[in-house]
């Protein structure tokens, strides 16, 4: 009898589990539907398109890929994006973690106020951020003109070439995106068990030790998540270089990033096949990096 009851109990448990799985899938459904419509389908469509001559719908094999890889602008664009991603992701990981930890040492109310202030630039669309920055970078109107003058940059041209596109775009990206992540990391920090923090404090941990030995290891997954997300966004950099021409024709950067090359093929040459090939290629790399990070940090492992 006891064994039978155990079986019965198992069956019931499995049924309950199955029901729960079903419910979670139903709850996920709207998201999945949107993801299929606006992420999975376009990716598959582009993947298919990349093997065709889109003008006459003839199967071309790897012709589009060959054309994309032979483009003389591709290697410089990859180099630009690589530098940008390195600078920007490090800026985000270090800067945001630091600011979030500093905020965590404040008491609740001032921290909330400062956090909201940090969040504000994130509310500006990235295209508007570019325009804003063009003013910030112009020594004639910039509030930071004293900094530029100190290093001898007296016009917009010299500031832009002095800072370099990589740093300018990274700064733009940091200003626009850090606020949201500071809030996320703040949330992760405030979710830490107060017992552990108290225990560490009683054991004599100073704020530095508290941050490096206790807090950072405990929010490392959130930091990894941030790194993966900023990496994915960073590799698609488009708006910032594309809008540089607003500062004047001489700052135009139509082939600075890989995404811009895809755009160029689609909308300048009308060659959607090569555009699709570049898009497919530029999806593969972030996927590899993201998976590596996920497995290396055992991201989904539940402690």
């Amino acid at each position, binding site marked *: 009898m006891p064994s039978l009851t155990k079986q019965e109990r198992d069956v019931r448990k499995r049924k309950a589990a199955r029901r729960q799985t079903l419910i979670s899938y139903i709850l996920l459904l709207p998201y999945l539907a949107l993801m299929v419509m606006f992420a999975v389908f376009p990716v598959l469509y582009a993947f298919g398109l990349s093997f065709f001559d889109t*003008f006459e719908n003839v199967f071309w094999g790897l012709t589009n890929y060959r054309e994309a890889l032979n*483009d*003389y*602008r591709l290697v410089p664009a990859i180099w630009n994006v690589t530098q940008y991603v390195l600078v920007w992701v490090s800026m985000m990981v270090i800067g945001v973690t630091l600011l979030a930890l500093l905020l965590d040492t404040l008491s609740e109310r001032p921290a909330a106020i400062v956090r909201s202030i940090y969040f504000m630039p994130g509310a500006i669309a990235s295209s508007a951020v570019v325009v804003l920055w063009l003013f910030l970078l*112009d020594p*004639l*109107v910039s509030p930071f003109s004293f900094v530029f003058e100190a290093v001898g940059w*007296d*016009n*917009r*041209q*010299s500031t832009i*070439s002095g800072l370099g596109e990589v740093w300018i775009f990274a700064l733009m990206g940091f200003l626009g995106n850090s606020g949201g992540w500071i809030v996320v990391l703040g949330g992760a920090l405030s979710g830490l068990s107060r017992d552990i923090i108290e225990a560490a404090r009683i054991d004599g941990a100073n704020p530095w030790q508290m941050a490096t030995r206790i807090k950072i290891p405990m929010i490392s997954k959130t930091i990894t998540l941030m790194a993966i997300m900023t990496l994915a966004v960073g590799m698609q950099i488009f708006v910032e270089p594309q809008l540089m*021409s607003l500062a*004047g*024709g*001489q*700052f*135009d*950067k*139509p*082939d600075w990033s890989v995404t811009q090359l895809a*755009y160029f093929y*689609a*909308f*300048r*040459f*009308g*060659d*959607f096949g090569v555009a699709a090939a570049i898009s497919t290629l530029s999806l593969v790399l972030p996927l590899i990096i993201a998976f590596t990070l996920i497995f290396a940090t055992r991201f989904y492992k539940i402690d």
Partner: protein
Amino acid sequence: MKKTLKTMAFGCAAAICATGAFAQDKVKLLVWGDPVREPFYQAFDEARDDIDVEFVSVARNEMVAKLQLALRSGEGVPDAIFMQDVNFAAQLSTRRANYLMELSDKVDQETVDGFYPTSLVPCEKANGSLICLRNDVAHFMLWYNAPLMEELGLSVPTTWEEYEKVGAAAAANDSGIVSGAVAMHIPLMNFLYSNGCELAVPQANNPETLKINATSPQCVEAAQLVDRMLDTGSLARVAPFDPEFLELAKANKLLMIPGPTWFGEFIIKRRYEFADGMTGVAMTPKWAAQDEPLVWSWGGGVWGGWKDTKHPEAVVDLLKFVTTDVDVNRTAVTMPAYQPASVEWGTAFDGSGYYATDGSFDTMVDAAAFGHPGYASLRLDTRASFTKAVVNDLASGASFESLLPQLQEEFVNAAQLAGYKVITD
């Protein structure tokens, strides 16, 4: 922005609207352009009771992309467009983006001959066919500050060599007086092309072949002149529209500047804020070794129609109207490319009393005769390539001459990418 230019009610009343069917019979044309060109379309709409024009404003940098999308989806393709960049004509008549209507058999020879010499070159395709009509001519002139020229006791240069001397004399003793701003693509190109330097110039017998030789003696000579003028401080290492240059111009520190026909109205009057009677217009200089000047251009839009439009006749009528109609072009913002239409425009230009020189318009007409035959429509973006290879480095202090090899490399690459055959000598 979308709007029908004329209310149906008005059209109906004017044409003694007998039946409801009449309004239905009206030919409807969807047209794209920039806001400046809306009155042109509007005038056509008003001139023709049988045609209704629906105007959509499209920004310059979105024109080609939006048209590619419309062509691909097959919906909302405009019947006619105004192209703000002459290169759009080439970019919209390729195998993949085959938009533009062939006009050679639809526009009579007399009309074609009425356009300024070489002004239709951007509209000509390989087999001598015509794919667009030029809106305005935008060849270079030499604009100068007449009172300042007199005050300094200098005379207006007629050769580039004199231009250098006059510029140096004005800039002497740290006067801060400049004679141009060159950290920008077209102002730099102007020096090269005017000396016969060939940078992506289509070959007369084969427009699919471009000659690119940025290190030829003509190019080097022009680049060296720019470098010497940068050294003496007579050319500014900024762009003509940069805030610091505007400050110089407003402070009476700008002696002269090579600029296209629209420079007077749009830059000198509005941005440099020269007072009435201050601006002189002179023929663009020639090089000492040349018999006559070779005049490069900056801009000049073109009009084109859709080859698959349902109303080809109405579209051709529209294209002819907007380019050749005297009344419409009298108030055009830029110098009309159709000679008869430009005359009245010129009368207004001279009559405005803004310009210091007598017969300013005639000088612009004279200069049009020396238009560079290589100012064509290309599938590659020469401005972007030039900017990338030269402008940033030059603005940061490099000499123009030292940048010619990388200019050569970038142009050859860009031309080949766009499918051109490239020759270098």
